[in-house]
């Protein structure tokens, strides 16, 4: 990863900008939402390999800063939401797209189904990721 940052730096003009945008590893809340209500259900939990990748990315960018390649100008976080119409669609997506990276906690799916059945007609299932957004300047 440090080598990739060195390559990026090579292709940037002097004083060029590097944007680091990625999900923060950890636990992501699963909720059933509607226009009128929000019911927390449980959590999606990142698996160890995803946590390790995130840690490696943090180490690499710190190393790039330590070597004087980039200086950080800003750092923010925000929420990024995924919405599905049904719990089954959420489960299918997680199996197809996030397999090996994250998994639903035990009982979270059945709990989601129950909450979804009790919610209003505009109900949806939501997972919210916490995003990291940092701006770096080439030195």
């Amino acid at each position, binding site marked *: 990863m440090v080598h*990739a940052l060195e390559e990026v730096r*090579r*292709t940037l003009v*002097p004083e060029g900008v*590097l944007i680091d945008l990625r999900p923060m590893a950890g636990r992501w809340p699963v909720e059933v939402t509607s226009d009128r209500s929000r019911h927390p259900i449980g959590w999606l939990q990142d698996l160890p390999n995803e946590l390790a990748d995130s840690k490696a990315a943090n180490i690499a960018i710190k190393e790039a800063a330590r070597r004087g390649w980039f200086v950080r100008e800003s750092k*923010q976080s*925000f929420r990024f*939401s995924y919405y599905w119409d049904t719990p089954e669609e959420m489960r299918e997506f997680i199996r197809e797209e996030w397999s090996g990276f994250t998994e639903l906690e035990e009982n979270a799916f059945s709990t989601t189904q129950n909450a979804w059945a009790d919610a209003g007609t505009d109900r949806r299932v939501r997972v919210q990721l916490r995003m990291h957004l940092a*701006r770096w300047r080439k030195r």
Partner: protein
Amino acid sequence: MTLQKDPEETETRYLNKTTNFSNQRVLEIGSGEGRLTWRYAHGAGGVIGIDLVGDALKVAAADCPATIHETVSFVQASSLHLPFPHETFDIAVLAWSF
């Protein structure tokens, strides 16, 4: 499947608040199917998206909005060996890829 990703466009707001892409030459690393690219490419001076996954880049090329077709291109490449000369870009975006 009716999946919606960030319908509130929070990501777009934060990204464009953080950086002014107007007339800038942008390298996007991990551009995938172009979901993020479409959110800032309007007004950029040029965008090259790279990704290791060729199928994703084909989708991106096919889905590229006509209004930015002249601005955006996609290349299958690794961030470890960027196929571009020194000092080519004003901005590099690590797009969910690092």
